[in-house]
């Protein structure tokens, strides 16, 4: 119904990488997307359409973390450990006030965020790769 009001409440959002909670978001919280489309299609010159469904579920989560947040320290520590040991961690992002859920049992930080310091508070952009990610892209309940 058009007059229904539903609410996304950031307080109900949790995002964890291993035993660490990711917080301290800049403007946007996160952008998550599969790296490749699940279904690709091609239309032949005579109009016949062919489709290919792939099993690839590698996804990328990009976080903008405010430069002063201790989350940067945690992500940096984990990135160093991941680079040295090949460690992966489970990743879960869950909207507790809705149905959105992103899960990956093997996630890793792709690279050290770029350091850019100046007179204003900026964002550090961290890219987390999610292997075999399950993404439920839902709405909110109430």
């Amino acid at each position: 119904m058009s007059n229904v009001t539903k609410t996304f409440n950031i307080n109900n959002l949790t995002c964890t990488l291993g035993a660490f909670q990711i917080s301290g978001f800049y403007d946007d919280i996160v952008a998550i997307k599969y790296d490749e489309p699940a279904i690709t299609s091609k239309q032949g010159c005579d109009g016949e359409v062919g489709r290919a469904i792939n099993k690839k579920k590698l996804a990328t989560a990009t976080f903008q973390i405010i430069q002063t947040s201790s989350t940067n320290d945690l992500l940096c520590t984990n990135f160093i450990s991941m680079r040295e040991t090949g460690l992966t961690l489970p990743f879960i992002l869950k909207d507790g006030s809705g149905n959105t859920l992103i899960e990956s049992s093997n996630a890793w930080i792709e690279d050290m965020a770029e350091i850019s310091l100046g007179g204003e508070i900026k964002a550090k952009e961290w890219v987390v790769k999610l292997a075999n990610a399950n993404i439920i892209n839902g709405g909110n309940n109430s």
Partner: protein
Amino acid sequence: MADINQVVDVQITVTNNEISTEDFSLLLVLGYNKVFTEKYRVYANTKGMLADGFRATDAEYLSASAVFMQNPMVDRILVGRREADSVKISVNTVADNRDYTCTINGTTFTYTSDSSATNIEIAAGLVVAINAGTQPVTATNNGDGTYMLEADVALAPYTVAIDTYQLIVSYGVGQSIVEDVESIQEVNDTWYAIMETERDSTDVLLLAAWCETNYKLYGTVSSDTNIIDQDLATDTTSVAAQLRALDYRYTFCIFRKTLDFIEAALFGSQLALPAGTATWSMKSLTGFSADSLTINQSTNALSKQCNTYEQIAGFNAIRNGMVFDSVFMYIDVVRDLDWLKQDIQVEEFRLLASNPKIPYTDAGISMCQGVLKKEIDNAINMGILAEFPTPIITAPLAANVPIIDKQNRILRNLNFTATLTGAIQSLKINGQVSF
């Protein structure tokens, strides 16, 4: 004088991430022996057993031999010792003017037979020699060429080594089989599988019951012909029929026309494989000939979920790799799910133990959920759980958790549903052709 700690205080915290776990490839062979006094010893081959004093005819040696002749095979086994206060020794070979020895706890007692030796005379001579010594055992002459050794203090272990002209013919029961296995479990609980060498039916049922509550996989062998000659409804006395009636999940039995240690061979070959990779059916075992059974005999055994070792199309094979439980049914399912259970337990424990705190918040619950997700995916990679339908993990919101659980710091309702991969063990194919 001022202490340097007042100036430079160094505190080093050690984080111990090592968690003691069950080894799903480790077999305990339980039997009577007077070779060692420890509760168990670890062996990686049979040569080590001979060096310790086992004989090539001992049940433990034959079991180990069955294990180590398989390909693939486990890299080691435990040999566990049942307590026996008394032991009966027979003078098997009589020779004139020969030294007969009985070594107790490293002290050798000798009797030299005369020029008209009898086994009665030799046994009597050894008894006198032993009782004249100070070892904490009392020897008794049975008057028939055998003699007994009995511990002066109940359950006080002692070793016995005898020359090749003598033989240990029996052991006196020191305590129940459950007490024996529990006393080993107290000092080493890393083993997952167990077999025992005596196969006394009372002990089989006792040990099977114990394994149900201790989550140990027990394999045994029976040559009771009721298993193959009577159907499920008629047979009420065989071990297989009784275990089937009890619906035991952690015990399997193999019928053999002649008792041997074929369960050791099956353990040796299948425990060597990672969980999720193999069924225990249709496996050919080195060193064991197949039983020739009629179709009816085979059906009778399999109806009780008792396994057989038969020749199928020229191929010796275990049929059907089953436990006695009517739901779990297969040995590999039991082992795979125990592996998964331990994997989840260990990793969730590691999460709790290796972090200063997992908060009782949605974030903390997510951390626990993340670990569960990782282990479920691991089980998929291992071939235990099916990738499709996709396993579903559900977790409560912190706001919906009862206060009492928060007070007690217990997280409940972290649940998953998943599908076992299962396995194909037989086929039924229908074909239709026409002109």
